[in-house]
């Protein structure tokens, strides 16, 4: 154990938003010269904790101690004053401006009222030197690759000489080489005595760079200690918690019949790398991977929401597989996005309009106009079938609870009776009851003969439904498991080959 006194301690932090509890006793202890991995499934409370540390949110209870003394962090500026700096996951770049300006934009050095390019260049060149970057402070950011931009983000965080530096999923858009460089940088920072918090979903990375790990689940710290004491598998187990193996909603089935969809080596630079698979009628296929592994990207690329660089998609039409463009495939797919409020629903519009949105052909009146009565009946029929709780079919969908909103999304696609369903985190943010209903609904889809591609972070959910699993890592499908695979095997798959532990 290190004898050093901790640089920073977050002790028993609680955070409530109204009646919702985001943090219920989270603790974190950072030491100088160490990288500390912060792990947790989606919604575990990592970002809330970091936002409290960064001064963006204020805690409800608990203590923050810096070098042993209790402090308040009232604003991002405050955080910086205390020597806390962030490298955000999404790069906050000013693309048309130079690297130097990007790094120092909020504290440009001046001389006689004018920005001193010379001093700016010198300061930034020194930081870039420390980072081992080969681009110049005068380069325009938009001419840099993603990795270099990440370095600019790091440089900006370093500009204020922080004692504590937080990396939030820094490698999600980096190539292998760029990743190596980042790790070297982290190594150098540690050597210089900086305390590093490293948030990631990639297990292999933490074993490479970190000395210590804290795992959070449901707003609490569940375990913390030297990384040497953990195996990858342990961490996954802590992250996902005790997976209660409920009864399967339906027994796994082997693929049967002719494939309805064939995906052939689709790629997009930086996101997907030669993804291929087949989908058979009536089966539920789980895309199993951690957040950021590329499962969402696969689904979105297939329906044409994001572009593709190469690859082919074939759909069964008239008895044989025929090539389709992603945009055209969209017409055959019921797509439930992970961002229900941002992409799934038209929040201010009535429930009825949201349900009828993809089903206008079924609610048209004699003049080719939408028949309000039929639209209402159509909506009500689904509301009843899916047990959507509402007081009027005409109420704005915004006013429904999350679970009922999600049912509206399902209702919309059910109406079109598609052969394919792509479900991306269909139960995100739902309570237990609503989750169960959505899962049953998913099973019913497959029973009805549709093929389902399901992406979810929750293992129990996957295990209660999937007929087989495609293991997704770094935009590739690295393996496949049958529906009978047990929890151990599935967890192992996440920390398996390619994660490099």
């Amino acid at each position, binding site marked *: 154990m290190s004898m050093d006194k901790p640089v920073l301690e977050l002790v028993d932090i609680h955070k409530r938003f109204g009646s919702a509890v985001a943090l219920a006793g989270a603790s974190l202890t950072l030491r100088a010269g160490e990288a500390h991995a912060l792990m947790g499934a989606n919604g575990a409370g990592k970002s809330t904790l970091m936002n409290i540390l960064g001064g963006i949110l204020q805690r409800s209870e608990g203590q923050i101690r810096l070098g042993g003394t209790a402090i308040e962090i009232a604003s*991002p*500026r405050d955080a910086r004053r205390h020597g806390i700096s962030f490298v*955000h996951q999404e790069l*906050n*770049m*000013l*693309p*048309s*401006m130079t690297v130097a*300006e990007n790094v120092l*934009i*909020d504290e*440009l050095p*001046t001389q006689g*009222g*004018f*920005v001193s*390019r010379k001093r700016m260049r010198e300061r930034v060149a020194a930081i870039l030197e420390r980072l081992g970057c080969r681009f110049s402070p005068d380069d325009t950011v*938009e*001419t*840099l*690759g993603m990795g270099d931009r990440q370095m600019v983000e790091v440089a*900006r965080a370093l500009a204020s000489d922080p004692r504590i530096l937080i990396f939030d999923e820094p490698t999600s858009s980096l190539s292998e080489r760029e990743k190596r460089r980042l790790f070297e940088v982290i190594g150098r920072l540690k050597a210089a005595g900086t305390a590093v918090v490293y948030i990631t979903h990639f297990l292999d990375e933490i074993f490479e760079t970190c000395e210590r790990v804290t795992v959070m689940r449901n707003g609490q710290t569940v375990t913390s200690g030297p990384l040497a004491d953990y195996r990858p598998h342990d961490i996954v187990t802590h992250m996902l918690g005790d997976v209660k193996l409920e009864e399967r909603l339906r027994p796994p089935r082997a*693929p049967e019949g002719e494939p309805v969809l*064939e995906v*052939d*080596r689709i790629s997009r*630079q930086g996101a997907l790398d030669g*993804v*291929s*698979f*087949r989908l058979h009628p009536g089966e539920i296929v789980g895309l199993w991977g951690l957040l950021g592994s590329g499962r969402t990207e696969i689904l979105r690329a297939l329906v*044409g929401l994001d*572009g*593709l*660089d190469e690859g*082919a*998609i*074939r759909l069964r039409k008239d008895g044989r597989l025929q*090539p*389709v*463009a*992603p945009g055209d495939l969209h017409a055959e797919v019921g797509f439930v996005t992970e961002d229900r409020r941002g992409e799934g629903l038209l929040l201010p519009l009535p429930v009825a309009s949201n349900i009828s949105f993809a089903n206008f052909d079924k609610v048209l009146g004699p003049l080719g106009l939408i028949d309000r009565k039929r639209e209402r009946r159509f909506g009500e029929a689904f509301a009843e079938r899916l047990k959507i709780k509402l007081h009027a079919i005409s109420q704005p969908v915004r006013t429904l609870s999350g679970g009922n909103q999600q049912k509206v999304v399902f209702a919309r696609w059910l109406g079109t009776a598609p052969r394919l369903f792509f479900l991306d985190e269909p139960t995100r943010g739902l309570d237990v009851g609503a989750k169960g209903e959505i899962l049953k609904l998913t099973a019913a889809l497959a029973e009805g003969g549709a093929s389902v591609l399901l992406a979810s972070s929750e293992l129990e959910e996957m295990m209660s439904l999937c007929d087989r699993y*495609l*293991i997704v890592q770094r935009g590739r*499908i*690295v*393996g*496949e*498991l049958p529906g009978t695979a047990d929890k151990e095997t599935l967890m*192992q*798959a996440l920390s*398996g*080959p390619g994660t490099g532990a």
Partner: protein
Amino acid sequence: MRDNQSTSFGQLARRHGFLIVLVAIFAVFTLATDHFATFGNFIAMLHAMAPVVVMSCGMALVVLAGKLDISIGSVAFLSSTFAVLLMNNHGVPPVVAFAVTLAAGAALGALNGFIVVGLGINPLIATLGTMIALRGVALQLTNAVLIPLPESVRSLGNLSIGPIFVDILVAAVVVIAADQLHRRTVFGRQLNAIGNGEEVAAKIGIPVGRRVFVAFVLSGLFASIGGIMSLIQVGSISAYLGRGMEFTAVAVVVVGGISLFGGRGTILPGVVLGALTFEMIANGLNQMSANPYAYRLVTGAIIFVAMYVDAMKSGRIRSRRKKLAVRDEPGRSTGTIAETTSRP
């Protein structure tokens, strides 16, 4: 999103596109008329475009922040009106009167800034409202009548040092000052950063509201300077002062390579080249005795070209193409499928 290897036409057009157009226009008029490419005419063009350049500088600052100010014509008109009325009806000395104009311009800009930043109203609508209202006030004050300036002030319009008119120098000073402000001060760089992405800028810690507010104040101030210059040149104030200037300035800015999406382009030489483009067309067509209304056609066409280049630069057209281009080639072989790939 932007891939960095996309040189070729896009960047070429961005770097030199408009210079080529400018040279072409220059060549055409030089060949087609006798007196186009003369020193005297060049000075005349600079003289004529001086007010436009000044007003466009203010517009450019606002546009660089990713906003828009279509009230500049009205601000110019109203703030100049104050000066004229003070001089003509109250015998106020010109220096004081014009100081009032500048103060009024800045104040009206501050009004715009307040509506946009303080009340959080879309700049287009906000300045549309003030554009209409301020023009109304000015017309009410002048009774919409053409009012000549006192002789002593009017004669300033042709004041020159050697062959160079003073207002060319004023415009030069303003444009250089605005350019330095944009390129070399903290304010200017942060404004540019806001234009790159308001949310990003806010996250990094730039005081977005304050900077945008000041940009509107400067826009109003520059509008009033341009108003004074235009006023003195014409020798009288009339309802035509500043009319349509908002659109001219937007056109100048766009043609000068300053992106309406904000954060891209520079005041020098952008604004000057933009203004020169339009002035050359006006002057050249005039000397060719072309139909004066052809000017608007050519102007519009030039704006379109500039905009196309702008859209291309911002990667909109390209990315769209890319998306559309992803079609399957039917002949492709099937290859191996993941069902059979290795297991862990």
